C-alpha cells in the first residue's frame, strides 16, 4: 500500500500542521511515512507545499513523483490547480477549499478556477470556511478539509482525531473540542 498526498496552501493557513497530523496518525496506525516541506522565505504569504507519503513498505523519494499523488489536499482553490501535474490520472482526487486568498493582483476569476477543479473526474469542493464558522471555530477550516478527505485516507479517522487532540492540547480543551467538531463536520459534509 502506497498513498501519496500533496498538501497545498498559502502561508499562514496551517497546511504544514495538518500534514504533521496526518503523518502522525499514519504512523500510529502502523504505516511508514516520509514528509517533505520547504521553510524559510516561502512561508511569507507565498505558496506552501508539503509532500506526504504513506506506505506499508520502505519509502524512497521524500517528494511525491509527478503523476503519483492519490490526493491533493488544497486549502485554497488556485493552489489545487498549481499542482495538477502531481495528481495521478488514474486514481487521484482533489479535495479543495473554495474560499480564495486574493493576495496577488492577477488572481484569476474564481468561477473559472472552481470550474477547472470541477472538470476533474474525482474532486470535492468544500466551503471549509463556512463549515468552520458554523462550527464556531473560523480558524479550523484546515481541519474541516482533512475531515472532508478522511474517508479517502488509508488511516482510521479515530487515529486522526487523536492527533488533532494532541496538536491542540496546549491551547486548552475548548480549542480541542472545536477542532474535533470541525473534523467531524468535514466528514459529515463529504458523506452527504
Amino acid at each position, binding site marked *: 500500500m502506497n498513498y501519496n498526498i500533496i498538501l497545498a496552501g498559502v502561508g499562514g493557513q496551517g497546511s504544514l500542521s495538518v500534514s504533521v497530523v496526518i503523518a502522525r496518525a499514519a504512523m500510529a496506525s502502523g504505516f511508514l511515512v516520509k514528509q517533505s516541506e520547504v521553510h524559510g*522565505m516561502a512561508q511569507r504569504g507565498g505558496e506552501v507545499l508539503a509532500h506526504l507519503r504513506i506506505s506499508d513498505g520502505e519509502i524512497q523519494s521524500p517528494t511525491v513523483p509527478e503523476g503519483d499523488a492519490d490526493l491533493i489536499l488544497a486549502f485554497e482553490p488556485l493552489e489545487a490547480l498549481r499542482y495538477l501535474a*502531481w495528481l495521478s490520472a488514474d486514481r487521484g482526487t482533489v479535495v479543495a477549499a473554495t474560499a480564495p486568498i486574493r*493576495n496577488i493582483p492577477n488572481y484569476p476569476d474564481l468561477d473559472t478556477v472552481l470550474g477547472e477543479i470541477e472538470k476533474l473526474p474525482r474532486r470535492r469542493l468544500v466551503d471549509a470556511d463556512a463549515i468552520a464558522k458554523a462550527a464556531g471555530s473560523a480558524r479550523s477550516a484546515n481541519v474541516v478539509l482533512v475531515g472532508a478527505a478522511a474517508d479517502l485516507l488509508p488511516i482510521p479517522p479515530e487515529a486522526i482525531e487523536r492527533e488533532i487532540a494532541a496538536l491542540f492540547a496546549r491551547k486548552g480543551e475548548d480549542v480541542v473540542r472545536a477542532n474535533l467538531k470541525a473534523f467531524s463536520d468535514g466528514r459529515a459534509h463529504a458523506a452527504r
Partner: protein
Amino acid sequence: MPEFVFSGDEAIARGAMDAGLSGAFAYPGTPSTEIMEYLQDNLGEYKAALAEGDRPQVVAQWCSNEKTAYESALGVSFVGRRAMVSMKHVGLNVAADPFTNSALVGIKGGLVVVVADDPGMHSSQDEQDSRVLADFARVPCFEPSDQQEAYDMTRAAFDYSEEHGVPVMLRVTTRLAHARASVATNAQRSPNALEKCGDPSAWILMPAMARKRWAALLGKSTRFRADAEDASSLELRDAGLGVITCGLGLRYYLENEGDWAAAHSGARPSHLHIGRYPMGNEKIRLLAAHVERILVIEEGYPYIERAMAGVFPAPLPVLGRLSGALPEAGELSADSVRAALGLSPKASAAKAGIPIPQRPPQFCQGCPHADSITALKEALSDEAEFYVASDIGCYTLSALPPYSAVESCVDMGASVGMARGASCVGQKRAVGVIGDSTFYHSGMTNLLDAVAHKTRLTVLILDNSTTGMTGAQPTIAPGSRMAELVAGLGVEREHIRALEAHRKNHEANVAAIREELGYDGVSVIILRRECLEHLKKMRQA
C-alpha cells in the same frame, strides 16, 4: 532502539547529543536552522541525563555569524570536547577561513561541520555544492541519503574526526534537512573530559609548523580515500547500465529502479553508492569495466561526474548533470531521474486550462519593514539620482512590486559595503538597507570602513529585534544597544537617528530620512519595531 519522527536537521541534532556533544554553535540559515532549534529545545533533557559535573559545560548557542560560530567550535575541540557547528551552504563561505585552516590543526575533541546546501535555491542566493569546499580544504565529507543515515553518520563523523584528528563535514541538502521520516536512536554517550591538546605545535599555524601540518594532512588522504571506498557499496548486475548515486540521488534512483527493471526483463542496473569523500577510484573502475555506460545521479554540482575523468579508460559514456542527461541547475527529483533512466513519465491529470499566476512571498500584514521601505521610497521620490543596496533578510522582498525599492542583494552585509563603494566613486545618495541581525553578522565592519574614510553614506538599520526570515531566532544583541554600538563604531551621534517604524510616524520618518540623505558624511537611521512573527512566538512561549 526507540523510534522518532525526525527531520534531517533534527536527526543530526539528536545524533550529536547521543554522540556526547559538548558545544554547538550556529548562525540561522535555511535549511540548517532547525538543527540549533532542536538542540536548544532539548538541551535541558540532554543535560539532565548527563553526570552532574558535565551539565554546566554543555552549550547550544546562536552566534554573530558562521565564522565566530566555527571558531568557538574549534576552541571546544582544542580542550578535548566534542563540537558541532552548523550553517547553510553560503554560511561556509563566511566561515571559510577557520574551516580551511582547521583542516591543518590537531583536532582533539570531535569537530563536525554540518553544512546544509540548498539546490534549487528555495531560500538562498546560490546553489553552491559544499562537497567542493570539503575537497578544497582536504576535509573528509560524509553525505547521508536519508534521516536514519543523517542520525547515524553524525556519530560516525564525530568518531572519525577524533580518530584522525580532522574536522569532518556532514553535507545535507534541503529535501533531506526538511523532510521527516522515522529514525531509530542509540543510547546517549557521555561527553569527553576536559583535556587540552597535548601538542600545542599542532595548533600553531605559523609557516614552519603549518608546513608540517599540511604534509601530515596530505599524508592522511590515502587513508581517507580507502575508508570512503570501504564505506561505498557496489552491486554488479546489468552489464549495460551502471548507476552511481550519492545523497538523495540514491532515493530518487530507488524510486524508479523497479520500473526500470520491469522495462528490462527484470534486470536491475549495476549500482555504486558513495556516502563519503574523498572517494576512492577502485569501485568506479570495477563498475566501468562491467557496464557500457554510467549514469551519475548526484544532488548539487556534477562533482563525482567530474572527478571520474581519467579514472578509467575512455571511451565509456558518462551521463549526468555535466553531460546534460540531468539538468545542471536546480534540484534533482524522482521525475528528472526517471527521465534520465529513459523511463516515460507517469500519467498526470490534465493540466489546468488557465495560466496559474505565481504567488510570491510577501511582507506579513503590518510588517514594520513595509513601513520603513515606504518611508524610504517617499524620501527618495524627489531625488534625481540614488542607489539603494539591500541585504539578506525579509526586507529583500522590497525588491518586488509594489515596492521595487532596492537595487541589489548579494551577500550578508553587502548593502553597507556596496553603497559605500558606489558612493566613493561618485554615486549620489547611496543608501544601504540592512536588518539588525545581518548588521551584527557582517554589516558592522563595513560601517567601520565608511567611518574611517568619511564616505558619504546613509544606512538604514531595520531593527525588528529578531532574525525574522528564518523563523524569528534571537539576535546576538538587544536593540536597546544598537545606537551605542553604532556610536562606538564612530558614527557622529547627531547623525544616528532612532525612529519607530510605523505608518503613524510616516511623515516624521520621511523627513528624518530626507535630512540624513542631505548629510555629507556617514549617517545611520535605526528604524525599530518588533517583528510580528517574533511577537507571536514570544506570546506562544
